[in-house]
């Protein structure tokens, strides 16, 4: 009978397998995808991006940016309950933002410029900024509101980071039952303000790194949803009658970032030549199995405010000519990559072969992500070329450009790119409240960047999810959660 009971529970649950270590459930770390995915099921945000990449309220019933751009007035939804049955108020919002500012880690980097929150009433508040910023409001889509009373009660000596690592203080549709690093087990919160009985009673997010294992578990029926499978495995599973393999557009972009400061890649002509060497179509077809769109510009498809640039193309002759012009013969370069990512490894090898065609020898240098991050603090230590998959925290051109290309964004400006003109345009955009005008500035910046060949943008990738046809519904991403939003999952009625 225990087996039977277990089977019943299993039928009412959805098991999701994802990749990578989940360090913490503390929504503070929503900048890491491994945390953002479960946090999205446990917490709510004030605003979210809607269908057309426009911001809509979630916990916020309404919001309005002041004309000077220095404050935002907000009214909260009434009757939202936290999991411990207390009601969400403006105090909780203030607490959440203050905590982030105080700790200064993780998602705090998204809301730079936050000054304070004025609580005007239970559901009424004003957020004050130190300077006008067009970047602030969209960032709120990644700020999960925590239960101030609960976190205060469990603050410990680090503002609740220890406690929140394995507990939740949210108002989301699920609440944490257990968390062991390799798996988060969640149960449905029945008092959720947006309750839906079709949500599964149990929701498990497991870490299974190996794509093949996920593939086998899915075919065996042990998993309901599989994320981060290699494209090859997903395509293989498309034939399984019990499974559905879905592809979603995303903001994930595969790219090779050049060091624009030192070495041969400091020369734009060399960078341009390298860009002309890669076999974009071959890579997309053979490695990504066609699941993506060739890149045209620095920012991934699916983001607003992109100029209409021509997609990158391979042109060996032109590349050789450019190299000759730059006086670079017998060029030897290093390409850093993270060998843990199967497909990136293949791309690295492919690029190596492509460059041989234009007479450039490439040494492949495996690198661990922390080492890479550390190298960014000084342009001189940035790898000559780094192969990465990068994605937008949320689909806003401003934040990506600001972090990625401004000369003072040390640490996140991964090419060491420094262009006064770009800096000026971006500063201007920051204080431009008018959306259209800001958009034009962003487009201009992107054109400059593309012309400078700061990176080799390969393609914007599709993300996939494979799930059990007869069991699961509602599999899909939202702009702030990829590859899928757990909160959207539903059980299919039998």
């Amino acid at each position, binding site marked *: 009978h225990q087996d039977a009971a277990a089977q019943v529970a*299993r039928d009412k649950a959805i098991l999701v397998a994802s990749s990578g270590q989940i360090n913490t459930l503390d929504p503070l770390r929503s900048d890491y995808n491994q945390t953002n995915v479960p946090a999205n099921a446990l917490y709510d945000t004030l605003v979210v991006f809607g269908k057309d990449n426009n911001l809509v309220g979630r916990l916020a019933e309404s919001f309005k940016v002041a004309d000077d751009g220095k404050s935002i007035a907000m009214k909260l939804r009434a009757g939202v309950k936290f999991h411990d049955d207390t009601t969400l108020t403006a105090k909780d919002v203030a607490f959440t933002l203050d905590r982030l500012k105080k700790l200064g880690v993780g998602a705090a980097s998204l809301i730079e410029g936050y000054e304070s929150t004025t609580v005007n009433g239970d559901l009424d508040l004003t957020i004050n900024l130190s300077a006008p910023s067009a970047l602030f409001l969209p960032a709120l889509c990644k700020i999960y509101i925590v239960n101030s009373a609960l976190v205060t009660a469990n603050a410990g000596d680090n503002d609740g980071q*220890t406690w929140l690592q394995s507990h939740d203080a949210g108002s989301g549709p699920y609440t944490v039952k257990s968390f062991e690093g390799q798996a988060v087990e969640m149960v449905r919160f029945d008092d959720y303000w947006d309750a839906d009985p079709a949500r599964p009673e149990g929701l498990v997010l497991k870490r299974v790194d190996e794509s093949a294992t996920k593939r086998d578990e899915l075919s*065996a029926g042990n998993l309901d949803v599989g994320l981060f499978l290699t494209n090859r495995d997903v395509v293989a599973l498309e034939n399984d009658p019990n499974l559905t393999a879905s592809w979603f557009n995303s903001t994930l972009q595969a790219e090779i970032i050049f060091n624009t400061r030192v070495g041969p890649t400091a020369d734009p002509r060399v960078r341009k030549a390298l860009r002309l060497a890669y076999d974009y179509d071959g890579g997309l077809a053979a490695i990504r199995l066609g699941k993506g769109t060739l890149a045209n510009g620095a920012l991934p498809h699916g983001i607003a405010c992109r100029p209409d640039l021509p997609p990158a193309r391979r042109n060996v002759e032109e590349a050789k000519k450019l190299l000759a012009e730059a006086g670079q013969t017998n060029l030897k370069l290093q390409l850093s990559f993270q060998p843990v990512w199967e497909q990136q490894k293949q791309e690295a090898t492919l690029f190596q072969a492509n460059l041989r065609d234009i007479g450039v020898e490439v040494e492949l240098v495996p690198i*661990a992500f922390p080492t890479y991050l550390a190298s960014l603090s000084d342009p001189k230590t940035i790898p000559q070329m780094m192969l990465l998959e990068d994605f937008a925290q949320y689909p806003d051109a401003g934040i990506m450009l600001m972090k990625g290309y401004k000369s003072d964004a040390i*640490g996140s400006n991964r090419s060491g790119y420094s262009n006064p003109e770009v800096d000026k345009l971006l500063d201007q955009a920051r204080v431009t409240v008018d959306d259209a005008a800001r958009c034009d500035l962003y487009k201009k910046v992107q054109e400059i960047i593309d012309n400078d060949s700061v990176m080799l943008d390969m393609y914007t990738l599709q993300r996939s999810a494979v799930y059990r046809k007869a069991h699961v519904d509602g599999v899909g991403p939202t702009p702030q959660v990829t590859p899928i939003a757990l909160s959207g999952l539903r059980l299919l009625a039998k």
Partner: protein
Amino acid sequence: MSRARSYLWFFAKRLGTVVFALWSLGSLVFLMIKVIPGDEAQIAAGPDASPDQVALVRQRLGLDASVIVQYFRFWGRLLHGDLGTSITTFQPVLLDLERTLPSTLELVVVAMLINLSVSIPAGLIAAARRGGRTDGLFRVLAVILGGMPAFWLALMLQYLLAARYRLLPISGQNSYGMEPPRWTGVPTLDAIAAGNMASLLDALTYIVLPAAVLAVLYSTQIFRALRTSLLGVLESDFIMAVRAKGATERRVLIGHAFPNSINPVLTLAGTQLGAMIGAAVLVETVFARRGIGTYMFNAVAQKDMYAVLGSVLFIGAIVCLINLVVDVLQIVVDPRIRAAQFGRS
């Protein structure tokens, strides 16, 4: 010297060795971590953090102090039983270990049980039939299995037994809904504690393949050591004396040869336990089990210094403990060692 005092002296000496070992270990790892390129503060602050934020974090983690100061702080905390706090999970490392280690220990202990329950009978049979066909077969098997890369074997068996023929689960540690209430964090133990047979069976189906794969290499080693040791002992004079009393071969083997051969096997099994904890990472990655291997691997990858230090020290302590137990066992088994350590009994 009195008996009690020599016992005390024995343990004091062993303890001294253990402390020295742990100290050098900790210092070594500390040094190593400091050599690793990569900035802990940057990782703690997040990939998009601004330089100011990173500096703030650096200060809060005490990473702005000189290495020497950090070193002493580290030991100071350690003496208070604090292994430090992970910079990625914000958990006390001890807590993280408490979550991950039991699972590894379960794997290792089950593997050791499989190891011994296969290798010892095989060793005894081979020695009893030395030169015979069974002996030859066992030896060939031992050679071949001993050369198998564990991770490769794990992959192949996982594919064949689990993915292809679905005889065993593919990965993980429990089926959904079968988890026993968490008490020790060891599924099998917890199931036993909860008196839940179904859950125990479930946990066993999950552990048997990983443990068996982990056991293979080590059981061939024990088999060979036991066989060699037994053959040596069986050649020795006192065995002839036992035969001259009219003892059966069974009695000779089990009653006399085996106890006299156990010493090298004990020592080997002791070192193996330590090595198995290390090798568990291979099996854990293939079977997607939680465990100290994966934890350490992550910690190293994220330059989570205290997590690495803590795990290494903890594993070191466990290994030292195992060595101590092996020492004590040898003393229990062999009256000569007993006499050498504690004088006449």
